[in-house]
């Protein structure tokens, strides 16, 4: 369960990152592809090399989706219904991949925020990402 302070912290962090959504999102994706190469298989149809147009554009979409989720944290299931159906039925992403991606998002934030990525911020964002990806993977069950 997220406390009120945690919810505020989460919204604050994503709002601050929105202007650099492309950088953050594409870096997190690139980290996932390089560190956990099997995740690339879902993106075979796309050019996802470092700096590619698609990597940047997709990275931006992801961060925007996360920021929107943060603003609607009490209604995640309905807010993300479309994304959830898409990842489960169309893309058929295996749930373990979400853990790998979440870790890469956390590492990206840690690199960007340095000491500002405190244990409290880390805990709040980790909980948020788990809740978010639980919704994305939920249609499997």
């Amino acid at each position, binding site marked *: 369960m997220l406390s009120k302070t945690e919810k505020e912290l989460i919204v604050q962090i994503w709002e601050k990152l929105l202007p650099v959504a492309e950088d953050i999102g594409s870096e997190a994706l690139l980290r996932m592809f390089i560190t956990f190469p099997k995740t690339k298989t879902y993106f075979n149809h796309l050019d996802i090399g470092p700096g590619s147009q698609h990597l940047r554009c997709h990275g931006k979409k992801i961060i925007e989706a996360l920021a929107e989720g943060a603003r609607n944290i009490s209604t995640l299931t309905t807010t993300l219904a479309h994304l959830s159906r898409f990842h489960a039925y169309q893309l058929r992403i295996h749930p373990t991949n979400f853990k790998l991606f979440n870790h890469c998002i956390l590492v990206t934030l840690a690199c960007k925020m340095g000491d500002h990525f405190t*244990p409290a911020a880390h805990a709040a964002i980790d909980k948020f990402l788990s809740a978010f990806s639980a919704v994305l993977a939920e249609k499997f069950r």
Partner: protein
Amino acid sequence: MVEWSAAERKIVADVWGKISIDEIGPQALARLLIVYPWTQRYFGAFGDLSSAGAIMGNPKVSEHGKTVLGALDKAVKNLDDIKGLYAKLSKMHYEKLNVDPDNFRASYLLADCLSIVVATKFGSAFSPEVQATWQKLLSVVVAALTSKYF
């Protein structure tokens, strides 16, 4: 047998050379206990773990964080036989923590926390390529540590 390329060996040595065991060890263990509070059950003997502040100020947490990184130091210096090196340590964790199969998962969580603490220190120097090699090291360490469970 795990194979390490010359480039990977260099990355491991570079990263490790910049890590202060006394600083990073306590922070990584503190994050495990703060971000994943259920892991606290293994550390009942450590005293006050009731808040993030208490955990970060707890000398036993600091001490144990240094101990864990001390074990990692040995792994870095014996990349070619981490499994043999950790046989006794694995047995000890198995016997001490066997109660809950989730302790297996907790080792991954500790590894994740360690990576994140390193990322906060290194910033952009913790590039995707560095992260990939670092992750390989931690995966080998966790596999060796949990080998007695199977």
